[in-house]
């Protein structure tokens, strides 16, 4: 069985509470999943004069999103902001492998079994597809909602330029460079994390974020495992088979219509069971995954500020030395002023960013936890009704 090609129209985004206003609205209106890539239709509505039209669409692939994200990270002017985390790469490998195995094993199972498994795998594929679309959309919405990033030129090009951006994936050399940059960054990170900040606010944030990030990471991994288990515990499938068995081998008075009703009920119970696991995935697992990435982006901001602080302190020391030796004083003064200015600029915007992060986080958790609880209740009540109807049929069958 070949990997299915899916087209998604007007998918709904993962729920992250964001300010949307009429001046710039971005969404992914369409998506197409092909053999080895996904094509997203990025749709923009804007009243800003920067754009040629008020409404337009372009087609983008995952690499182009990454290019945009990396351009933000590498931009020194944005050092004081939390850069919205890049969406994860669409990963259909596991699903595709399963579909392939199913195709290979087609001869060894009944047509019914094959159809059922194919449907299940297609549903799984579709769920992954919807998620990846949502992740990419959220990234764009976060950028569009940010007062500074929304004005970025690369962002506008991304939204408007209707040709391929030709951003090839990084070659080996570039990947190696990235690797070393990250090594340096984390070494720096350790250094910076060790230095106690004079500013209480940042000191608190540093302590908080380090712990929070680790715990979200743990919770995210554990929620994934739990939900996977949930998805493979097929209680209602068993119930359904047992009801069939009972109807076929055990009833002395055959009330066919009534027993058919238990089959309908148990089939619906199966649907609810699947929905419960899917909703937990969406409202809990995805939420945790998202905040894992966001908290990392916040940590990155703190590291950048920390490095700016170190640079500033070093510039101070250099200035003192220059003054003492009375050599290159002007140069040292200029350098020190630049470092001071950079550090203060980052600190100012970082404070606001971190406050906004907290607000966003609290709002997102509230929304998802409320929705999770409401959905669990809805499904449980649905189950209750179906179970009661099954029971009344069985108890009435003499």
């Amino acid at each position, binding site marked *: 069985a070949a990997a299915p090609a899916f087209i998604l129209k007007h998918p709904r985004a993962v729920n992250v509470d964001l300010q949307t206003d009429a001046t710039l609205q971005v969404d992914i209106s369409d998506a197409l999943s092909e053999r080895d890539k996904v094509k997203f239709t990025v749709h923009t509505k804007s009243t800003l004069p920067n754009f040629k039209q008020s409404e337009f669409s372009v087609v983008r692939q995952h690499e182009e999103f990454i290019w945009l994200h990396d351009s933000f990270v590498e931009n020194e002017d944005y050092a004081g902001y939390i850069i919205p985390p890049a969406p994860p790469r669409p990963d259909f490998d596991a699903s595709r492998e399963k579909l392939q195995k199913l195709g290979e094993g087609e001869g060894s199972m009944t047509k019914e079994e094959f159809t059922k498994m194919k449907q299940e795998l297609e549903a799984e594929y579709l769920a992954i597809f919807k998620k990846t679309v949502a992740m990419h959309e959220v990234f764009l919405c976060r950028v569009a909602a940010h007062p500074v990033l929304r004005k970025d030129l690369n962002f506008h090009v991304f939204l408007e330029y209707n040709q391929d951006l030709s951003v090839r994936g990084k070659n080996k050399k570039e990947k190696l460079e990235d690797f070393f940059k990250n090594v340096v960054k984390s070494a720096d990170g350790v250094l910076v994390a060790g230095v106690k900040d004079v500013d209480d606010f940042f000191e608190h944030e540093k302590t908080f974020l380090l712990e929070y990030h680790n715990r979200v990471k743990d919770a995210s991994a554990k929620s994934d495992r739990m939900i996977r288990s949930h998805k493979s515990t097929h209680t209602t499938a068993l119930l359904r088979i047992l009801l069939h068995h009972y109807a076929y081998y055990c009833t002395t008075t055959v009330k066919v219509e009534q027993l058919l009703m238990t089959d309908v009920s148990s089939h619906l119970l199966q649907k609810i069971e699947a929905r419960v696991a899917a909703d937990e995935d969406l409202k809990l697992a995805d939420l945790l995954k998202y905040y894992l990435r966001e908290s990392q982006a916040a940590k990155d901001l703190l590291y950048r500020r920390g490095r700016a602080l170190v640079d500033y302190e070093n510039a101070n020391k250099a200035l003192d030395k220059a003054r003492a030796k009375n050599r290159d004083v002007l140069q040292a003064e200029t350098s020190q002023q630049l470092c001071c200015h950079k550090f203060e600029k980052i600190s100012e915007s970082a404070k606001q960013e971190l406050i906004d992060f907290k607000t966003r986080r609290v709002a997102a958790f509230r929304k998802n936890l409320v929705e999770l609880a409401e959905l669990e209740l809805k499904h449980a009540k649905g*189950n209750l009704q179906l179970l009661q109807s099954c029971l009344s049929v069985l108890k009435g069958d003499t």
Partner: protein
Amino acid sequence: PCNSDAHMELTTEKPSSSARKEPPASSGPRPAASFSPSPAAAAPKSMEQLEEEEEAKDSFDVDVSVTNPEKVGQYLPPAPSLCWSQHETSLPMFRNKTFSVRRRFSDFLGLYEKMSVKSSLHGCVIPPPPEKSVMGMTKVKVGKDDPSSAEFLERRRAALERYLQRVVCHPLLLQDPDVREFLEKEELPRAVNTQALSGAGFLKMINKASDAVNKMTIKMNESDTWFEDKLQEVESEEQQLRKLHAVVDSLVNHRKELCGNTAVFAKSMAMLGNSEDNTALSRALSQLAEVEDKMEQLHQEQAASDFFIFAELLADYIRLLGAVRGCFDQRMRAWQRWQEAQSTLQKKREAEAKLLWANKPDKLQQAKEEITEWEAKVTQYERDFDRIGVTVRKEVLRFEEEKAKDFKGQIVKYLESMLQSQQRLIKFWEAFLPEAKAIA
């Protein structure tokens, strides 16, 4: 083998219809709680207490229960003696209305052994005893006090109880003197030859016998296809049950895994809640952790349900269907015995004719006697065959009724337990929802 000592308890309870689990109001002479260990074994043993009562509904029913086993030679508080009240319509055959005896596991096997060879019970579906589990019993003997050995003991106790209940529900078996002796007699002689049943099990034995029948040269020509059709149905159902049993087993395993993963997740949520610096959100996350803990509890109970309600039911019926197949085999053997007798009679008649021709008057008398003997046998065996056919038909119908009742009962029980689960789930989430809404 596990051994136990016999223990009899006499009480004179006032009859009352539904007081199933009341402790004895007045007890008659009660043997001391110390038990003399059986001389043969050195290791700690287990005992089962067996008590009976008569059920309110049907005057011909006897209700049996097997209570918790105890260990001899180790101090353990004795299992609570449950004395059951009984109904006025007491079965005249029993000496007492309520009584209990101690039985070893091998005694149960021995009972089956005795019933299975009785010609008077040929064609009957004799309930097979539970299988022995060497692993499980070893753990218990070694004194391991972990949940798996407790689970094993409970599983065995429940299986023995179901076995005995099926025996006493059978109108013919209840009349059987060996059954009555099993229920009533203080000390039973040690059962021998239970090895065959305890090892690879009951089904192996049935299948071996079946093969032997199939290998017999003379085949039956059935005018009435009921027997053939029914046997096919039984075989197909047995296959289905095996598949189902595998499904249930796999479900139990997945659910246990889900349990573990839920517990671990709950802890990680609690930790996350701890480090969250927004107060209301922190509290909500801790509450969520508690909800997940409660879910784990639900999953545990559901796993037990899966097992005790379904897995055991399916295992029982796989064996019972084997027993039903056994009846059909018995009928086949009865037919073959009749056919062989007819063929022997024919040979005797031919021999007589030869003797007449050869004119040997002395041997003729003997030949005539043999012919008479075999004519009687042929008549007898034909009657046996017809009778067993009637028995098998009746038994199969009775068995099917019991099976339908059993399956329905268990499915209903399971649905009710699922229902309860959902109701508790609703309570958990309804308590959580306001906490989530209070996040600000």
